[in-house]
């Protein structure tokens, strides 16, 4: 299980990535994250992050009737969200490289 402290900084970027793939809703995002190995991520865990992303203008929300169930809030990524995702990917690559290098060199 990934610690919540470690998750905090990275989950927003991962959510943006999931939303960038296709328009989706909270429960589907949490299920996607679980499929990728983020265990114990419920809809409630990501809801405050979705609110923050929406307030910052990185995602757009739209309430619509679902074809198979009740009304749902569908999220899509905005242009600002796309830039934020690029920035996250760059930061993540930098962090990953630094951590990998540190572990490799110390093991040597």
């Amino acid at each position, binding site marked *: 299980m990934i610690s919540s402290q470690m998750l905090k900084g990275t989950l927003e970027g991962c959510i943006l990535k999931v939303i960038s793939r296709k328009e989706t809703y*909270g*429960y589907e995002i949490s299920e996607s994250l679980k499929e990728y190995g983020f265990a114990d991520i*419920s*809809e*409630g*865990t990501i*809801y*405050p*992050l979705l*609110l*923050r992303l929406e*307030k910052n203008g990185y995602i757009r929300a739209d309430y619509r009737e679902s074809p198979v*169930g*009740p*009304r*749902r*809030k569908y999220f899509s990524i905005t242009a600002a969200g796309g830039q934020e995702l690029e920035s996250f990917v760059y930061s993540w690559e930098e962090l990953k490289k630094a951590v990998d290098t540190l572990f490799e060199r110390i093991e040597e």
Partner: protein
Amino acid sequence: MGRDMKKLRKLNNELDKKISSENQPVFTDMICYIRGASISDYDQELVRRDLSEMIIDAQSRGDGLDAVIGSDYKGFCDEVIGALPPKSTKQKIIDGADILCTCLAILGAISIISSGIVAAVKTGSISAVSIPISVGTVVTFAVIIIAAVAVVEYIVRHPFEADTDSMKGRIIVGIAAGGMMAALILIGVILRSTLFTVNLLTAVLVVLALFLAHLALDRL
């Protein structure tokens, strides 16, 4: 209250009815806690809609509330509140003024009915009746408003720790309410010196103006 807000509140009231009796107590506690947060009324209603739909969706899948939100309801609400912009100082002042106008309008209306109307019926004339405002009236009004705000603040800040169902909780609430009533009666009896008198018609107009001020502030 704007048209969007009214529409949203109406929709939320409809959604509330779809929440199962099993989930209703926790949902009510969460909304109660969010009501006490320093976020705009509109954001509160938006969160209420999101939570309602999240819970209704979970119910349709056969999931419990814990599967959606976890067991730390307060922690979840704190995360939600933290993700939203806090109320501006201007909005806080408007809200405070709204509460004051509402409370004064209600207390004023009670005073008019309890003393003014009775006197008007006795004398048979409305214009000749004056309502005496004593030191006790002013102090009683202030104590009632402060106590009402304090009680509401306590309730909205501690919904997850509510203990009113237990015997101990009921005794504490009973003693506090009884003590409060006794103190108010005592204040009314001791501080009887009249500060000024207000004509009944003027008092009615003041109460009406306070109520209209509340309606105007509520729209801001």
